[in-house]
């Protein structure tokens, strides 16, 4: 095989292993080789488990030699955000408090990927308790952006974005409560799928906000996200919020045409205060989608600032409630920024929180009505490309929330509405940093987003670009 195995897409490498064109051992060694090249620069991994990964790869190869395949991802090594419980493994959640926490169960999403044949490569870095949009981590250090060291990856799935972009893992689970999959996808130039609230079980995934948390993949293409979603989605007896709504054939969706699809572009909010590079790339993306057959329609969305505020109130309260015991017993063990964010939730009266929750239905209904004429909405993920780690290290600054709010203003509204959104790489700015866009869909209609994302990726090559380790 001429191509370095680690550079293949998830779908391609899974097929190559199944067809015995490459062994799981070769693939795993290729990933480990790249990890050795990059880890010192990126800090993307919390742990690299080379020995056990190679042992599992050997077992996968032996099984395949006997004609036994465990599933569609047989022998594919993957690493995930260090917040997915994996029985018997330490799961730090990016924190000091859980530095030695050994999970007793395995999360449903992870188990479903294991059942499909994946191999554990290690655990990926993340913002402490998934509560930070930049990728800074007070305890374990910031994860770096492989496109430009010293720049943020976006968070909270910082290791997932960095490791997928650098081709250290074929894909990675992230989680998205306010933008934590889409922002790393945007800043690192990879594809990230924030699913509809309830589409993928959250059982065994570290909680941050029970009303907003979603589990989803970061990968190298829309097609890879489709493969992973098909394996993970669906009802789960361990998670009563996991929906029983029917699943689509997500892989089939990726080969559909854009012809006849209508894509909305907001007239305000998402087009305000954009850096010039982001605005230009948004225009270019619209042009490509038009050329591929989509109709572009302007849409006027309801007041997004109110949605954003409601999301902040819900997130702040639910996160503070999850952490209350540790806020009382171990406040000194949090990083200052995370402690600060958690304390915010202490100030919100219960009635205001319940109003924010109760408004969710009418707010979603208003969005559905405003977008009734389109199949998806196209919007930037963030108004800027990745800032430097230094300039966004807000510490205990009184302006911390202002910085964070600018980064997350285009993403958290979608979590409040529980909608699916697919972040796809759409270009690079003048400094060579990636810029992504998000396609926002209807509830439980991830398939249409994957159709649009895959069509865009057939027409462009931004998702195939690989950062150089030199």
């Amino acid at each position, binding site marked *: 095989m001429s191509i370095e195995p680690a550079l293949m897409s998830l779908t391609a490498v899974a097929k190559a292993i199944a067809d015995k064109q490459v062994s799981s051992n070769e693939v795993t060694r290729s990933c480990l080789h790249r990890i050795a090249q990059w880890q010192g620069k990126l800090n993307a991994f919390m742990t690299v488990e080379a020995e056990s990964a190679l042992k599992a790869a050997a077992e996968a190869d032996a099984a395949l030699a006997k004609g036994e395949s465990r599933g569609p991802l047989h022998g594919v090594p993957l690493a995930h955000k260090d917040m997915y419980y994996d029985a018997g493994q330490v799961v730090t959640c990016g924190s000091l408090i859980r530095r030695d926490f050994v999970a007793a169960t395995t999360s449903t999403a992870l188990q479903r990927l294991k059942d499909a044949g994946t191999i554990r490569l290690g655990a990926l870095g993340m913002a402490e308790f998934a509560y930070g949009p930049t990728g800074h981590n007070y305890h374990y250090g910031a994860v770096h952006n492989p496109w430009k060291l010293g720049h943020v990856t976006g968070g909270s799935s910082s290791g997932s974005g960095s490791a997928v972009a650098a081709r250290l893992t074929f894909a990675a689970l992230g989680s998205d409560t306010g933008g934590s999959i889409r922002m790393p996808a945007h800043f690192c130039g990879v594809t990230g799928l924030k699913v509809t609230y309830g589409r993928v079980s959250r059982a065994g995934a570290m909680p941050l906000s029970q009303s907003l948390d979603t589990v989803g993949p970061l990968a190298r293409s829309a097609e890879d996200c489709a493969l992973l979603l098909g394996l993970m989605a669906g009802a789960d007896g361990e998670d009563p919020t996991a929906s029983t709504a029917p699943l689509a054939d997500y892989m089939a969706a990726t080969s559909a045409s854009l012809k006849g699809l209508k894509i909305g572009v907001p007239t305000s909010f998402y087009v305000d205060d954009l850096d010039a590079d982001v605005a230009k790339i948004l225009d270019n993306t619209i042009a490509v989608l038009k050329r591929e057959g989509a109709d572009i329609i302007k849409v006027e969305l309801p007041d997004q600032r109110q949605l954003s505020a409601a999301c902040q109130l819900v997130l702040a309260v639910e996160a503070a409630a999850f952490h209350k015991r540790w806020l009382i017993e171990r406040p000194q063990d949090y990083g200052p920024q995370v402690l600060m964010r958690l*304390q915010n939730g202490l100030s919100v009266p219960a009635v205001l929180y319940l109003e924010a929750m109760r408004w969710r*239905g009418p707010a979603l209904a208003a969005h559905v009505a405003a977008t009734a004429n389109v199949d998806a909405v196209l919007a930037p993920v963030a108004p800027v490309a990745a800032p430097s780690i230094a300039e966004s290290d807000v510490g205990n600054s009184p302006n911390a929330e202002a910085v964070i709010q600018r980064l997350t203003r285009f993403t958290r509204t979608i979590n409040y509405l529980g909608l699916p959104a697919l972040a796809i790489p759409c270009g690079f700015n003048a400094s060579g940093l990636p810029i992504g866009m998000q396609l926002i869909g209807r509830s439980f209609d991830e398939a249409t987003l994957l159709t649009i994302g895959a069509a865009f990726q057939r027409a462009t090559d931004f998702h195939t670009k690989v950062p150089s380790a030199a």
Partner: protein
Amino acid sequence: MLHSHSKRLACRAKERESERGMTRPSAKEIKPIADVAGVPIEATVAERIANSIGPAFESFAPIAGTLPFDLEPASFLLAQTMKVSR
């Protein structure tokens, strides 16, 4: 129905927003709330919280206090599955 309800809310909210003024909590108000929540905080922390979360209170002010009595708290689940014809 949820949508028309939402439109009515938006109109009513605009009228009432100016009547009610600011709803951003002060540090003085935040400290006792945190104390009652069981996680006492210093005055300086209360000041920082007021600056951090205050804008969210302000932006949500047009909605707060406007929701009708009979709005089903779980209507979000209905809205997730509602069909809208083009």
